[in-house]
């Protein structure tokens, strides 16, 4: 974000900063209810994501994973509170939430098909003003995704599914996000491509300390890169813990990892 952060620091909770310097309560979701019209999907979701952490949201189809991400970025209005680093995000429009540092890579990738790869990436930096910084970040994104550099002037719609997912993540990075929301990044991709993509997400997280919330059906991959994980079922969080704990949980193993212990 190039805009100065005017967030009300006083709102920040006391003692929220851990010894390591990373804020444990960086993204705080409290009792979030959301849905579409009369259809309620989320029934009081609460979770905390630490700064610089990767948090995985697992769960079956229809559990509300996508709705949770949409509610975080303002695409779906809900009740309850969402705060990022002490600033309230709930009740704000998606463009405002984006300008506060939340970059959402939606399901289906949200590619601007007829526009070129470079135009797609530049759109990611739409809210920023410093041209030199944007140019530098463009190179940084090409560093993460060299394949995009080879296709700079190509229409984004002509990219393969994997390349479009990389473009979507690259576009999100162009906003210098504080939180990256990834909705089913593996959807429709070959296993090899998915593995490469998750590797890149992990290195982005490590190199740039970008906080990541990833919704994923492929629980194995998500748990491999995540620190914390939550299991969502019928709009409620039924299990939370470190990725290792979740992996070891027998019920999760049976339901989502596809094997019995």
């Amino acid at each position, binding site marked *: 974000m190039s805009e100065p952060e005017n967030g009300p620091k006083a709102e920040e909770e006391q003692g929220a900063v851990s010894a390591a310097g990373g804020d444990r309560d960086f993204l705080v979701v409290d009792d979030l209810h959301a849905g579409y019209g009369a259809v309620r999907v989320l029934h009081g979701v609460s979770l905390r994501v630490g700064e610089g952490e990767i948090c995985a949201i697992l769960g079956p189809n229809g559990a509300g994973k996508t709705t949770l991400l949409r509610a975080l970025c303002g*695409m779906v209005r809900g009740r309850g509170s969402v705060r990022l680093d002490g600033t309230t995000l709930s009740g704000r429009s998606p463009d405002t939430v984006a*300008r506060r540092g939340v970059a*959402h890579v939606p399901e289906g990738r*949200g590619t*601007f098909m007829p526009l070129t790869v470079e*135009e797609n990436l530049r759109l990611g930096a739409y*809210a920023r003003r410093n041209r030199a910084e944007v140019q530098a970040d463009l190179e940084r994104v090409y560093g993460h995704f060299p394949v995009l550099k080879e296709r700079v002037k190509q229409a984004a719609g002509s990219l393969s599914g994997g390349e479009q997912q990389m473009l979507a993540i690259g576009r999100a990075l162009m*906003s210098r996000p504080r939180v990256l929301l990834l909705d089913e990044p593996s959807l429709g991709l070959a296993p090899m491509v998915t593995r490469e993509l998750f590797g890149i997400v992990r290195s982005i997280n490590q190199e740039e300390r970008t906080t990541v919330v990833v919704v994923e059906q492929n629980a194995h991959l998500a748990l491999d890169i995540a620190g914390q994980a939550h299991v969502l079922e019928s709009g409620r969080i039924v299990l939370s813990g470190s990725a290792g704990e979740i992996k070891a949980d027998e019920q999760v193993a049976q339901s989502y990892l596809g094997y019995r212990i």
Partner: protein
Amino acid sequence: MADFVQQFVGGLGAGAIYASLALALVLIYQFTGIVNFAQGELAMFATYIAWTFIDAGLPFWLALVLTLAISFVGGMLIERVIIRPVEGAPELTLVIVTVGLFIFVNAAAGWIWSFLIKDFPNPFPGGALQAGGVSLAYSTLGVLAVVGGVMGLLYLMFRYTKIGLGMRAVATNPESARLVGIRVGWTLAFGWGLAALVGAVSGVLVAPLLFLEPNMMGGVLIYAFAAATLGGFDSPLGAVVGGLIVGVAETLAGSYVDFIGSDLKIGVPLAIILGVLLLRPQGLFGRAVVERA
């Protein structure tokens, strides 16, 4: 031959005017999926504003600049106040709203300036450029130059500026545009302002050829619809090319096809609309929308 060339260039001059109104229609359609039936009336209203400035003694070009600025702001206001509340409504609702706007603006112009025709000055010198037996009226060349200039500026804006990129993003994928932080509502309003401005150019250019009166743009709107349909409603380039083709076709048909003459000329755009819808519904430059069942 010389006669043919002369008719052809005359057709291009008329076509350029249709093209600018068609471009205004296409701009709005691309952003909002709305066919703005009031586009011609907004252009007519803008022309009256220009007339008022000129009547008050302002030089033509200054009056034009002021008019374009007012049109731009007016277009934005219309989007914010009238279109915003029905955004995303069914097509029939949108059609009724813009038709209502048509009637309102038409009546308002008659109420303010009366329905009596007014003379609108031609900004271009009289006379003609003589070349190889062909005489090209300066006014025709002037119209072509102005419309060409407006198109060029629009192209540069869409291609090379940040707001242009943002507008293309909104036209392609509004939801994604919101997610990258684009203020979609204001971008739409900007698009309406721009369309009103481009439409105003067509009104000011056509007024000296016709007379200024509240129903002046009725015929022009039909030609503009034909142009947009021919070029493809989602293609600004198509609107321009379509406008020129319609202008030339209408002029040539009027002079070379005996039974058409000047009375049946208005049938030409209607035949073009019908033909395009039957043979190539997406237009020459439009993208065919294929949806999977």
